[in-house]
């Protein structure tokens, strides 16, 4: 296990290095410059600015400087936010995004599993049809539409939760629902499909022949086996939710990281683009590792060492 983890961490570092390299050069190929009013600036002004930000050096030198900084935990300084360090910028905003993403994921997966399982157990009945329709709606209605509907009916008309902003837990409820309905629908659809298959398998027949009740059969035997394919899906989903949904953060006026990312691309804020990209990538590789570990916990046939079982 230790050896396996060490190997995996090595690969993760390599992956992040490649991501950093590719992103850096792609970013440099983007048109435009970081200056808002470039047309009005004189050549000398631009030259001075370039020197100040290190943009006058050849690209490969800039790349090496960036890489060196990153290895020391220095992600550079943002261009657009009055020279704030990128790490501080991300640090201030990642909390809200992560909390929201995690809540949405837990909400979506929990109810998704329940709805999907009910649909599978009541296969080909009205409950199944209802769950399927719900899943299709959840999947096809864009989350910003749902967000606005929630704001209007629940926030404004009923006044149950604050309309927007960031503060206590009540602020997070509507954005969590808006963000979580997508994973909910996806999870429900997935669990339904895999559980219908599991329920028709021989070992479920054997479990029934032991005299177990329907609930016991599902809870002890079907559920765990149906969860296996879901794990693959959840990893990347969690990352994208945790690192922020730009639209939802915008609608609910939440100081998260998604909004930040869009702005940094629009303004060629190189250090911020790099910083957020690296954060996304790091999150993804860590989650993939966690996914593999969860896999081996749920499914005993998968052994992390890769030894013969």
């Amino acid at each position, binding site marked *: 296990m230790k050896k396996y983890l060490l190997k995996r961490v090595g690969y993760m570092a390599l992956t992040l290095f490649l991501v950093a390299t590719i992103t850096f050069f792609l970013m440099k190929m983007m048109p435009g410059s970081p200056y808002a009013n470039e047309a009005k600036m004189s050549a000398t002004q631009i030259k001075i600015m370039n020197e100040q930000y290190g943009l006058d050096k050849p690209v490969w030198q800039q790349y090496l400087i960036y890489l060196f900084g990153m290895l020391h935990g220095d992600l550079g300084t943002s261009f657009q936010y009055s020279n704030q360090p990128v790490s501080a910028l991300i640090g201030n905003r990642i909390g809200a995004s992560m909390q929201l993403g995690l809540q949405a994921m837990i909400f979506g997966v929990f109810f998704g599993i329940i709805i999907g399982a009910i649909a599978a157990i009541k296969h080909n009945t009205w409950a199944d049809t209802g769950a399927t329709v719900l899943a299709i709606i959840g999947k096809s209605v864009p989350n910003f539409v749902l967000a606005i509907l929630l704001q209007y009916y629940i926030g404004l008309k009923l006044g149950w939760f604050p309309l927007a902003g960031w503060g206590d837990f009540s602020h997070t409820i509507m954005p969590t629902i808006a963000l979580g309905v997508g994973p909910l629908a996806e999870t429900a659809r997935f669990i339904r499909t895999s559980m219908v298959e599991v329920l028709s398998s021989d070992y479920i027949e054997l479990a029934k022949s*032991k005299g177990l009740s329907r609930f016991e059969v599902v809870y002890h035997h079907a559920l765990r086996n149906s969860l296996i394919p879901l794990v693959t899906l959840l990893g990347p989903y969690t990352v994208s939710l945790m690192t922020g949904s730009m639209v939802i953060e915008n609608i609910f006026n939440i100081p998260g990281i998604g909004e930040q990312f869009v702005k940094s691309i629009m303004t060629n804020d190189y250090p911020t683009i790099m910083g957020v990209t690296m954060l996304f990538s790091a999150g993804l590789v860590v989650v993939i590792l966690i996914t593999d570990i969860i896999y081996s916990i749920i499914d005993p046939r998968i052994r992390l060492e890769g030894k013969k079982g």
Partner: protein
Amino acid sequence: MAERILDVKNLKVDFHTYAGEVKAIRDVSFHLNKGETLAIVGESGSGKSVTTKSIIGLLANNAEVVGGEINFHGEDILKKSEKEMQSLRGKEISMIFQDPMTSLDPTMKIGQQIAEPLIKHKNMSKKEAWDKALEMLKAVGITNPEKRINDYPHQFSGGMRQRIVIAIALVCDPEILIADEPTTALDVTVQAEILDLMKDMQERVETSIIFITHDLGVVAGMADCVAVMYAGEIVEYGTVDEIFYNPQHPYTWGLLNSMPTLASDKLESIPGTPPDLLDPPKGDPFAARNAYAMKIDAEKKPPFFKVSDTHYAATWLLHPDAPKVTPPEEIVRRQKKYAEMMAAKNN
């Protein structure tokens, strides 16, 4: 006379399908004595499995019992609620399935899978059930059981897995064990081991076995009685000697004749396919494939004719007015041997 623990009377099962009602079981009656093994033999689709699934109450959702009784210790289990059936399943009636590679839960330790019925039916604590599971593993011949009890199914071979399935089925000392082609998916050498184990375990827990198979070779060594099924009906019923050495129904002749023997240089087969049970034929369902069919076979279904107290066959050939026919060579040879056996017995 031996105690009758199971008595199936005039069982009829239909399957509701888009094409219509499939009459899968059409009036099946048989009984099972305590400690005995009854083999149900027939080709695929003859209704062997459906019959046993009705007994354990695990018919598919689109299947419906439309008539008959299944009396277990004098009580009709078809009248029992799902809850009552659950307390019967795994405790009084349990089952072994065809493919051991897929019949164990891949994500649960085998010890837990064996212990489960004990916790459910015998109110045992986890510890007690675990100890009993260990004992069962030893009994079914798993080596190093103290260690293997913590293993998962994928760590066992097919034969070992079938031993574990047998351990699960017998852990509560059931009255009836239904074995649905338990050796079909195994290697021939492993087959023999599993059959020996089943016989061994049958003596230990004093269970009766309903053994479903399409392999007559397996039947000879296992069964006390044999029911031959065809197109949802039993066509011949008798002791294992009667079926093997004095068969009366042309379908049983066909089955026996298609068994390879050392003397035969070519494999015989029964021509044709079984009838469509969406619309079962009026007369004898086997008539269309029967070289010995008479006019009446197409018109009227043959009743059971009594051959001996334990031996019945549904064929018009046994009617007193029927012409004498000579069965295939192999059957004649067997019947000769039967006559010798009977003569030896009477002397």
